[in-house]
């Protein structure tokens, strides 16, 4: 009998070694708190709930402690586990282009087509990427790591994941979480910079109503856009190709079902998988490093630089534009490609100073230009550093 009780005791002791309680480390607990904070931000503050809920919950999934030596094969970094299979979409880089397909199918490029000079704001805001690249190089990151970290400044989660999976796979978790976190925090980061860099008079500036864009122009745009940008930067093909393809599905007017699938069920499915797996990839043992802290700091800097360069570029651009064609500098922040959040910020800040000055339509121009610009920038970094 005593032997049997001993046997049971050993079994329970064995079982205890498999539980999360026995394997928990302070790192796991910190990451679980981070995950809970993300979920709180999404539910209570409604900061990018579509992203933060999957990522936050993914962080919880990825940080359930378990005995790795038990061969349970459940961890995201264990080859052949279910999470690992789902994570392949991130590591092999095929989730981001599918997200871009959906983005293309839901984006209206009319604002950009009606006023093509807004493209240049989207280009200027990409300085956030290369400013962060210079800082990362100065801190001591390798060029490929610096490039992967810098892309956070593009404010484009899928692009950041795509590029980091190619240039610095070991930093991908931190880069992805950082990119999505700052995208969610756009309403907090951008307005103070916009207010600081603009005068009262500039904020009240009104822009002429954009002209109506014909169906033909809308159909031609994705085709010409693809040919021009990808001939220039072929390494941006996976992202730009899918972006413009999605847009053609939308604008052609004859593939309504395909466009609806791309911007509906498909992008939702991929967003769920991408969010959960990116979140789960932040296992404490892999994530809680000094590099991650630096990446978060650099990410914040890159957002600040991108917003600043966008707003300042508009101010400079206004110096050479005729008076009636001048641009409200409040749309400069929209050059980062967080669609449509940064454009909404332009609108909200504009309305604070003039409740009848609607900037959303104008801000969508640089905003979608930012999407193209960041994909082009990613292509350049990939071409130079891969």
């Amino acid at each position, binding site marked *: 009998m005593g032997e049997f009780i001993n046997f049971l005791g050993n079994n329970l002791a064995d079982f205890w070694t498999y539980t999360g309680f026995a394997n928990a480390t302070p790192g796991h607990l910190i990451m679980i708190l981070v995950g809970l904070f993300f979920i709180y931000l999404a539910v209570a503050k409604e900061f990018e709930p579509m992203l933060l809920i999957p990522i936050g919950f993914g962080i919880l999934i990825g940080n359930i402690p378990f005995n790795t030596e038990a061969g349970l094969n459940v961890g995201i970094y264990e080859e052949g586990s279910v999470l690992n299979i789902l994570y392949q979409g991130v590591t092999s880089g095929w989730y981001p282009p599918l997200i871009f397909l959906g983005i293309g199918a839901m984006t209206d490029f009319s604002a950009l*087509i009606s006023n*093509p*000079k807004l*493209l*240049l704001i*989207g*280009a*200027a805001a*990409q*300085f956030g*990427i*290369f*400013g962060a*690249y*210079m800082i*990362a*190089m*100065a801190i001591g990151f*390798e*060029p*490929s790591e*610096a*490039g992967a970290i810098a892309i956070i400044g593009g404010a484009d989660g899928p692009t950041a994941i795509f590029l980091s999976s190619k240039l610095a796979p070991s930093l991908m978790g931190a880069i992805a979480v950082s990119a999505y976190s700052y995208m969610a925090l756009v309403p907090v980061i951008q307005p103070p910079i916009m207010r600081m860099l603009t005068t009262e008079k500039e904020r009240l500036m009104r822009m002429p109503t954009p002209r109506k864009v*014909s*169906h*033909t*122009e809308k159909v*031609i*745009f994705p085709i*010409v*856009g693809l040919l*021009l*940008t990808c001939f*220039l*930067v072929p390494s941006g093909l996976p992202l730009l190709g899918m972006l413009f393809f999605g847009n053609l599905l939308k604008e052609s007017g004859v593939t309504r079902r395909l466009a609806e699938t791309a911007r509906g069920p498909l992008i939702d499915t991929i967003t769920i998988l991408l969010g959960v797996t990116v979140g789960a990839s932040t296992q404490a043992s892999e994530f809680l490093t000094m590099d991650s802290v630096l990446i978060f700091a650099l990410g914040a800097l890159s957002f600040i630089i991108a917003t600043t360069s966008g707003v300042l570029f508009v101010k400079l651009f206004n110096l050479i534009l005729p008076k009636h064609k001048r641009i409200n500098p409040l749309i400069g922040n929209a050059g980062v490609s967080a669609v449509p959040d940064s454009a909404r910020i332009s609108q909200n800040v504009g309305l604070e100073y003039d409740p009848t000055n609607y900037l959303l339509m104008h801000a969508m121009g640089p905003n979608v*230009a930012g999407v*193209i*610009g960041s994909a*082009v*920038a990613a292509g*350049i*970094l990939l071409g*130079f*550093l*891969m």
Partner: protein
Amino acid sequence: MRNIIHKMMRKVFTPLPCGGAGGGSFLLLLILSLVGFTSCNNQENGTSKVVLNEVLSLNKNNFQDDYGVHNAWIEVFNKSYGTVDIAGYKLAVYNGTGDTVIYNVPKGDVLTKIKPRQHALFWADGEPNRGTFHTICTLDSIGGNWVGLYDNGGKLIDEIEVPTLEADHSYARLDDANSKWVVKGGDNASSYVTPSTNNMTIEKNEKQEKFAQQDADGVGMAITAMSVVFMGLIILYISFRLLLKPLLTFLQWITNKVQLLLKPLAGFFQWTKNAIVCIFKRKDRNNKNNLTETMTENQSISKTESKEEEVYAAIAMALHEEMNNVHDIESGILTINRCTSAWNAKHLMLRK
């Protein structure tokens, strides 16, 4: 602009007088034929996915086979980015005397599938019973050798004249799939004999090292990359600001030209169709007493008549309504009554 494109589309896709196939279908067929023709042409002139990569004809102290024997070897390389199965391929060797010896790579061995950018090594030991990669060929270590590689269709896809080589020296492409062949066998890293591995060992990422050395602060990258981003978006800007109208005009011009080109072809198809109909008519005349002709004519007449009748009916209806004043008299006031449904019920909404 919309009118232009509509007109353009209508012109391109207007059914041609030849009846059966529309102009659009014909145009599509023409384009597909062109694509098919081009791809066929490419296939003929194109390069193969698998190439001969390195040959060693006198093996004294070099790589050993599975039996621990030093034998001559021939390395092939899959230069594509997809797996290629070389089962059924032929390896041919001619060393100046006798016949060309041809070895058929056996089918049914999974090892004949060469992964992307990977190698396969064949032993020229004359011992095919030792395995798939042991061939019936042998290489002449004194004189030169000609080595050829044929695909499973029997087409020569690669060949090389191997010169006389010193012991444990190979004749290899400078780098995998490079067009330049060199003798390898020295102590220099670029001249190692490399059976089943890359002909040139890459130990570092030159691009990254260059950036790390010459652009340690990242300014060069920032300037270059920002220039490219601006250039790309400026090109896009110019395209839409300045080139859209000329582009549409050009498209119109192309459409007109295509239309002009199609006209004689359409005539030719009409003539062919008539000729075929005539032949069939003659054949059937005795049996069916011109039944086909009558039916065809009747069908076309009835189609035309039915269309005309619809037009007449519409005109008559319009006249009737106008003359007898039978139009509805409408108030011009539109009233929308609010009603609750599953679409606007608050409790069914996903969000508050």
